[in-house]
């Protein structure tokens, strides 16, 4: 199977109220899928169920053909390494440097004693440095995360996912906390990474114009129901002219 991420009939209720109803999607390698929907429509619930940060009531999730649903303990941890995540609030460790935050992507494969001593493997440190260079932050590697701007912090979060070398990148409203210029920068970066590395990206957004500009596939979320919409005549990221980074 060539699909990188597949969800089948995911459902979740919160205290009786359905938040997610039979959501299914299948992403192939290189897809830049956008889930568009107003806040409260269930996008974040879908994101949290796909990553199993929230346990779905029912449904199946496959990452690179391997099941994620039903896994527990060590198996779940191993499977999660294949999913890179970017959160709306960046979720960096504020008092750690950009480099240490990028290294967090290697946390899953690093033995606890190395974590305790802060001695990550040479290869992982190099991977984190390369990831920060790829997001344009090679000059800010030693800076504490809470001294970076919002856009920079979100780029560190993307570097974290790159260090993780995951099969898929799932981003929940990655630009909702950013100013318009930083938002474009982050989405352009995600597009570039997808183009350059064949990464598969799933990204929730609530602004139609951004979805139009960047999506190669479009899903719409309404009241917990997910449906794919034709990108059709929409100007997609692949066709879009390169966007200036110096906005």
């Amino acid at each position, binding site marked *: 199977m060539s699909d990188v991420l597949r969800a089948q009939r995911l459902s979740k209720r919160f205290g009786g109220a359905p938040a997610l109803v039979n959501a299914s999607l299948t992403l192939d390698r290189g897809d830049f899928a956008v889930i568009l929907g107003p806040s409260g429509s269930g996008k974040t619930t879908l994101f949290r169920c796909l990553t199993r940060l929230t346990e779905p009531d029912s449904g199946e999730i496959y990452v690179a053909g391997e099941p994620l649903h039903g896994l527990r303990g060590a198996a779940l941890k191993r499977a999660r390494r294949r999913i890179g995540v970017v959160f709306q609030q*960046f979720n960096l*460790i504020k008092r750690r440097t950009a480099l240490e935050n990028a290294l*967090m992507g290697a946390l899953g494969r*690093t033995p606890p004693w190395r*974590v305790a001593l802060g001695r990550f493997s040479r290869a992982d440190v190099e991977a984190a440095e390369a990831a920060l260079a790829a997001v344009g932050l090679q000059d800010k590697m030693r800076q504490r995360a809470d001294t970076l701007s919002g856009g920079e912090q979100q780029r560190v979060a993307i570097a974290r996912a790159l260090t993780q070398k995951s099969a898929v990148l799932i981003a929940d409203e990655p630009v909702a906390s950013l100013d318009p210029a930083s938002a474009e920068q982050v989405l352009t970066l995600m597009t570039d990474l997808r183009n350059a590395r064949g990464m598969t990206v799933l990204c929730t957004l609530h602004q139609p114009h951004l979805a139009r500009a960047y999506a190669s596939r479009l899903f719409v979320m309404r009241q917990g129901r997910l449906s794919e919409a034709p990108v059709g005549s929409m100007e997609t990221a692949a066709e879009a002219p390169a966007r200036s980074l110096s906005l």
Partner: protein
Amino acid sequence: MLHRPSAHESERRIWARLRFAALLATVAAFYAVCLHVSQVSVSRLAEGLPRLMNWIARGWPPDFSGLEELLLRAGETVAIATIGTTFGALIAAPLCILAARNVTPGMWMFHPARWLLNALRGVDGFIFALIFVAAVGLGPFAGVLGVMLHTAGSIAKLWSEAIEGAEPGPLEAAAMSGAGRAKVVLFALLPDVRPALSSITLYMWEFNVRASTVLGVVGAGGIGQELKNSVDLLAFDRVFAILIIILAMVTLIDAVSQALRRRLL
């Protein structure tokens, strides 16, 4: 929304007032009982005051003879508090992880951990010291053990609360890298809460120096022992000197602790 009839509304208001009046009456009754039980008596205070004034007058000038011995005892108090706080913190470290809702391995560990730390915290270090004097004999070591156990409970409680207040986001991000609890705690949680945990520890140290001044009363070492001896001998000039030393010591430790805590933030 349903529209509530105003009659219903005023009825509810009357009930609310009645409840408030009942609450006031209960509090007043509780105070009355407490005043009676604790035998508060203005007349006895009035009788005792002249005696107290007389003692204070006899306390001047303070008797600082053998100052070296007094300072040694004060140092003993600081040492008891320091070692007791350190060992208490070491015991608290694993306990606070088990007792913090957001990082506990499970409720089957959470509840016993909470019970244990509440038990440790519920018994004052002074009482623990009293028991340890019987077990390991007179001297500062009994004081160290007493301070240690009470501090372990207190620090674990405060630490686990600080941990529960940590932002969940970075912990989730760490978990999504495939890290287990130990690695999440070490890498993502500790840097976030370290200033708060250190501040709590310094505060407990400061508190323990103050609390340890009385340990000598039960024979668990420190300056309190000298204080008790002097009070027993009605040597008020000596008592006065010791109180001055205690005040100086506590003020110094508070200043050091506060300076260190300010640097953490």
